C-alpha cells in the first residue's frame, strides 16, 4: 500500500517536474523590459522566439515566432482569428486591439496590401519589443496607436470612423481589463463596425467566465460563430451572420493565399459552430457588473 502510494506520488511528481525543467533548460532569456504595466520578456528556444509577460513564460505565451519562417503562425489562436476573413474576405479598414508580437498585423498587411490597419496597444514597451524582436514594422497602411482599447474605441466613434474588421486580442491569462468585456463596450464596438463588418475576439474557453462572456456577446450580437480549441475565438457580425456554406466557399477561395502563413482552412472551418454550449442564465457583464477577474478561475 505504502509502496504503491510512493510510486504513484513519484509518477505524479515526475509528470509535474519534467516539462517545467525541460522548458526552463531550453529557454534562453534574450531581452527584458519593464514597463508601466508589466515586465515584457523575450525568450528563445531553438528557432522559436516568444514574448511573455511572466518569467519562464510560466503563465502563457503572448506570441511566438519561428525565426526561419517569421510569417507563419505557430500558435493556434492567431490562425483561428484569421477565420474572420471567411466572413469578410476583403476588409478595407481593420482595427486590432492588442498588439502582442504583432503577428496578426504583420500577416494582414501582406495579405491585404491595399487595406489600412490600425493597431491599438496600451503598453509602449510592447510596441518597442515587437519592433525590435518580432519584425513588426508600422508603415503607410499600418499604424500603431498607444492607448487604452476602450478609450480609442470611444474616440473613433466620436470621429465617426468605421471598420470592416475589428480584432480584439487584449486579454492574457493573468489579468483581464474588465472594461473590455462588458455589454456597453461590445455595443460601442458594434457601432464602430461598418454595415456587415466583422468582429473577431480571442477570449476564454474555460472557467466560469465562459458562460458570462457568451451571454454578454449574445446579448449584443445575437448568433455568432464560436471556435473552440485551447483558446476560443468568437466571430460576430454587425448584420446578418453569413452561412457556414458561404464561409466555407470563402475559406476555399482564400486558402491559396493563407497557406503561406500557416493557416489551415479545413481545420478552421471544422471549428465553426453556433451551438449555445453555455449556461444561458449566467449574469450579463456590464460596466456596473464586471468582476471578470474574479470569475476567471
Amino acid at each position: 500500500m505504502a509502496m504503491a502510494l510512493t510510486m504513484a506520488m513519484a509518477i505524479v511528481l515526475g509528470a509535474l517536474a519534467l516539462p517545467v525543467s525541460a522548458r526552463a533548460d531550453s529557454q534562453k532569456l534574450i531581452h527584458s523590459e519593464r514597463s508601466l504595466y508589466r515586465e515584457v520578456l523575450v525568450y528563445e528556444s531553438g528557432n522559436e522566439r516568444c514574448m511573455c509577460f511572466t518569467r519562464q513564460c510560466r503563465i502563457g505565451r503572448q506570441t511566438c515566432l519561428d525565426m526561419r519562417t517569421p510569417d507563419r503562425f505557430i500558435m493556434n489562436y492567431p490562425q483561428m482569428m484569421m477565420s474572420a476573413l471567411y466572413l469578410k474576405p476583403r476588409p478595407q479598414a481593420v482595427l486590432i486591439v492588442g498588439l502582442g508580437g504583432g503577428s496578426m498585423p504583420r500577416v494582414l498587411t501582406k495579405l491585404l496590401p491595399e487595406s489600412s490597419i490600425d493597431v491599438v496597444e496600451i503598453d509602449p514597451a510592447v510596441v518597442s519589443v515587437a519592433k525590435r524582436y518580432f519584425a513588426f514594422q508600422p508603415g503607410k497602411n499600418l499604424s500603431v496607436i498607444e492607448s487604452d482599447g476602450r478609450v480609442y474605441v470611444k474616440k473613433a466613434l466620436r470621429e465617426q470612423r468605421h471598420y470592416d474588421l475589428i480584432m480584439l486580442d487584449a486579454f492574457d491569462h493573468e489579468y483581464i481589463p474588465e472594461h473590455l468585456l462588458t455589454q456597453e463596450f461590445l455595443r460601442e464596438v458594434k457601432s464602430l463596425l461598418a454595415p456587415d463588418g466583422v468582429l473577431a475576439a480571442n477570449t476564454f474557453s474555460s472557467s466560469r467566465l465562459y458562460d458570462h462572456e457568451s451571454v454578454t456577446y449574445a446579448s449584443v450580437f445575437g448568433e455568432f460563430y464560436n471556435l473552440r480549441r485551447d483558446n476560443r475565438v468568437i466571430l460576430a457580425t454587425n448584420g446578418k451572420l453569413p452561412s457556414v456554406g458561404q464561409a466555407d466557399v470563402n475559406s476555399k477561395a482564400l486558402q491559396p493565399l493563407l497557406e503561406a502563413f500557416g493557416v489551415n482552412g479545413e481545420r478552421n472551418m471544422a471549428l465553426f459552430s453556433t451551438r449555445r454550449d453555455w449556461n444561458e442564465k449566467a449574469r450579463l457583464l456590464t460596466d456596473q457588473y464586471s468582476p471578470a477577474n474574479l470569475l476567471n478561475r
Partner: protein
Amino acid sequence: MQVILSYVIAGWSGFFVMAVELLGGRLLAPSFGSGIYVWGAIITIFMLALSLGYLAGGRLSVAQPSVRRLGSILLLAAVTVLPILWFGDAMLDRVSESIADPRGASLLAATCLFFVPTFFSGMISPYAVRLLVNDRANSGKHAGQLYFVSTFGSAAGTLLTSFYLVLVLEVNQILFALLGISLVIGVVACAVRGSADAAE
C-alpha cells in the same frame, strides 16, 4: 454613547472612503481605461481631499464640538455621493470629449466626482479626536485608537468591496448601500443630545 458613536463614525467613514475609491476605478475605466494613470489620478485626488478635510475638520472641532455635528459631517459625505450616481456618466463623457490627455482628463474627472465627499470624510477623524480626548496625558492613546478604528475600517472596506461586493452587486447598488448605512449612522448621531464639553 458619544464615545461609541465617535468610533463607529470614524470606522465606518474609513470603510466608506476606500469602498468609494475602489468603485471610482470602475466608474472611470469605461472612459479613461484602467491603466496606472487612472489609478494615480484617483489616489491623488482622494489623498488631497482627505488632507484638506483633516485640516478643516480640526479647525471646525475648536468651537462647540458635538457628536451631532460629527453625524452631520457623515451625512454630508454621504449625500455628496449622489451626484456621482445622477450625473457621473454625463460628466465623464464631457471630460473625455474635451481633454485628450489621459492624465489631465482622469485627474479632472476624479476631482469632479470624488473630491467633495472625500473632503467631508477627511473631516471626521480629527473632529472625532476632539470628542474623545479629555486630557493631554491620554490624548495620544485616544488618537491611536481612533486611527486604528478608522484605518481598520478602510482595510475592511477595501477587501470586502474588491473581493466580494463587486461579485454580487452592481457598482451603483454598492454606492446606494454605502449611502444608506451612512444615513442611518448619521441620523442616529444627530439624535444624540449634548456637547463634548458637557460630557467632560
